């Protein structure tokens, strides 16, 4: 099975480039079995949303 180290790196990359079919498949399998990485992915998306909200907050009233 793919390691959490690799899975988290791929989750981050998925925010910057389209993953290949194989990468997506491996990630799906990994997430099925790993609570930590499921949370990690969800939290990365939250962090992106926070960053966008933070910019908007700071650049308009």
């Amino acid at each position: 099975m793919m390691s959490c180290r690799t899975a988290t790196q791929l989750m981050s990359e998925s925010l910057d480039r389209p993953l290949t079919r194989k990468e997506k498949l491996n990630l799906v399998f990994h997430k099925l079995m790993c609570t930590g990485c499921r949370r990690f992915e969800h939290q990365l998306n939250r962090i992106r949303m926070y960053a966008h909200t933070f910019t908007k907050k700071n650049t308009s009233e």
Partner: protein
Amino acid sequence: MPQKQSRELNTGYEVSIDLLRDAAYISELREQMIKFAILQLQDESTAEDVVQEALVGALKNAKSFQRKSALKTWVFAILKNKIIDSLRKGQKTVAVSQICEEQEQEIEALFDNKGHWHQDEKPKHWEQPEGQLEDEHFWRAFDICLNALPAKYARFFMMREFLELETHEICENETLNANNLHVILYRARVRLRECLENGWFAEGKAI
């Protein structure tokens, strides 16, 4: 009725003139802009130059703004463009490939030798209370975590998540390839996640 309308227009005009004369407001706006620019340019004097240019450009047109919020949005739109121009000039060439080759101990320490989470480093569940996005304490914690990012990562994270540049737009102007950028963004995100979890989402809200 027509009389009332013209009075309203007049009031709007007076507000816009007041904005220009409102030294306190302009200086507060300038400070916010400088903070925003420093985060991205990592250099105070470049940030000040860029802010100055943006402010002068924006204030020339300030007559047409009748509300502070409209002026602020406009000023920051100009500032973003000035920041991107400045980054594009590429005065700074960081040896990014070198940064990527070095292992980052803080991140490697999260995983065991098989690359799986250490038991106590495993991401915890994040509560998402209602109103979190309006909570000033939360945003203060977020700001602290952003500032805690090492400059070598923060700059690229800002370009990607704040200026919303695409990978190829960032790589075009920097001495790095897409793989290096992916490594840097990963490290920035992992660190930010750690900081938010430990400083905010963990019980006690230490920050």
